[in-house]
């Protein structure tokens, strides 16, 4: 579904990483770890076509993102649910509209009523449905971002520090949702510093952990 082949990315004159290869197959579950500034967020952005590599190739469902038409990229993004580190909401809209936004832009807003109540209940935001994002706490925003990422039932879910601002109980609930989606055949890629989250996931599902360090992507996990 998503494949990075020998990818390098340079930023501000310096090379952030090079020679990276990664394949997200249906049903795979990856964690991406590494020190701050190693390029985890950049790697995720390459995976959903928000950035194009300096060299190498990123293919979304077999199509190279370099030179891909914007509309083609948009259609591919509908197959990828993304939880951004900074959540990326439309602050003038209530939570329900923000969560339903992927359906709205796809012209399927009428389907939102069927999914929203359960989804908001699952992430514990039912009573905040009419609030706007700036009125929510960091944790609430992250839960809302996860709800938005999965509302289209995407084939791939990419999350950047999805549990960074939530407590242990909520992080376990969010993980349970991601594990459930993974068992349904969705590919999951999560960038995190939270080792406990990785351990919890390993107890539930087959997980591959990758570490981005010294400009290289290496398999990790033995120590976890």
């Amino acid at each position: 579904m998503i494949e990075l082949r020998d990818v390098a990315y340079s930023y501000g004159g310096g090379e952030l990483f090079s020679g990276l290869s990664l394949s997200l197959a249906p049903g795979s579950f990856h964690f991406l770890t590494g020190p701050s500034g190693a390029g985890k967020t950049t790697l995720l952005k390459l995976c959903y076509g928000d950035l194009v590599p300096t060299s190498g190739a990123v293919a979304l469902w077999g199509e190279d993102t370099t030179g891909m038409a914007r509309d083609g990229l948009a259609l591919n993004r509908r197959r990828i649910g993304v939880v951004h580190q900074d959540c990326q909401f439309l602050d003038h809209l209530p939570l329900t509209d923000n969560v339903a936004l992927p359906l709205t832009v796809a012209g399927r807003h009428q389907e939102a009523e069927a999914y929203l109540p359960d989804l908001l209940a699952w992430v514990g935001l039912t009573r905040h449905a009419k609030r706007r994002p700036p009125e929510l706490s960091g944790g609430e925003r992250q839960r809302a971002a996860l709800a938005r990422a999965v509302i289209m039932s995407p084939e791939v879910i990419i999350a950047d520090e999805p549990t960074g601002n939530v407590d242990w109980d909520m992080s376990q609930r969010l993980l349970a949702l991601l594990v459930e989606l993974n068992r349904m055949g969705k590919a999951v890629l999560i960038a995190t510093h939270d080792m406990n989250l990785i351990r919890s996931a390993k107890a539930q599902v087959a997980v591959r952990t990758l570490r981005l360090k010294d400009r290289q992507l290496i398999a990790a996990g033995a120590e976890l």
Partner: protein
Amino acid sequence: MKRAAWQALSFLAGDVQADRTVPPTGFTARLTLFTAAAMALLTVFALALSLATGRLAARWGEELAQTSTLRISAPAEQLAAQTAAALDVLRTTPGIARARALTEEEEQALLTPWFGPDLPLDALPIPQLIEIEEEGDGYDATGLRARLQAEVPGAVLDDHTRWREPLVAAAGRLRALGALAILLIGASTAAMITLAAQSALSANAQVIRVLRLVGARDAYITRAFVRRFTLRALTGAAAGTLAGGVLLALLPGAARGTDSFLTGIGLAGADWLWLLPIPPLAAAVAFAATRMAARRMLERQS
């Protein structure tokens, strides 16, 4: 045609959910409304001036084309005889419906604007004027001049050509200037709306980014902005056109079509229909300007 009309209607009806994705933009909304209203008002006046110029020029030209003047300059004792001879010639000339010598009072009235009401006409060597009204295709001016030269040596025929031609040319130029003014107004409207749209697009860069991240296509993002600006331009232009129409209707003598240029400015009869296309044309200009600005912005941000 039907399909295009249906597409235009569904575009104007819009999608409530899609519209909500772009936050309200107070400043650019007011700027677009004001610009469209002001430009529509100016268009109404430019149109009215252009139409009035054309109407008056056509009327003057037609009146001048149907009449001629014969001027008889002769010593006072021969003036009456030459006038009678000239009238005889004119009455027997094909294409002339009527020929009439102006009375002393009428000549006095013609000279009053220049010399005042107390002009002693008897004391001045004023030529006798004969007003000629044509019929059908008019008369043969060359033949008439030849006959007059033989029978009434002091007669000079003025068929108004030297008045009519510059008048028609001036009217044509004025009409062209009116059209140019309307084109410039359209271009200014496009420029102002482009600036307002660019400002709105820049202010909503984050909104555009979020929409793209969740899979919005360019057409979806563009439509959200374009529809908003098109509707604002349509509303503003409709208000401006209405205001311009009301002001024109209130102008004195506008509908009566008087000969004075100033009181003739206005619209009469079917001319009012010219105002109807102004709001949709303003909306079309806004549509094109905003779409171009949005596409450029999306291209830059990609």
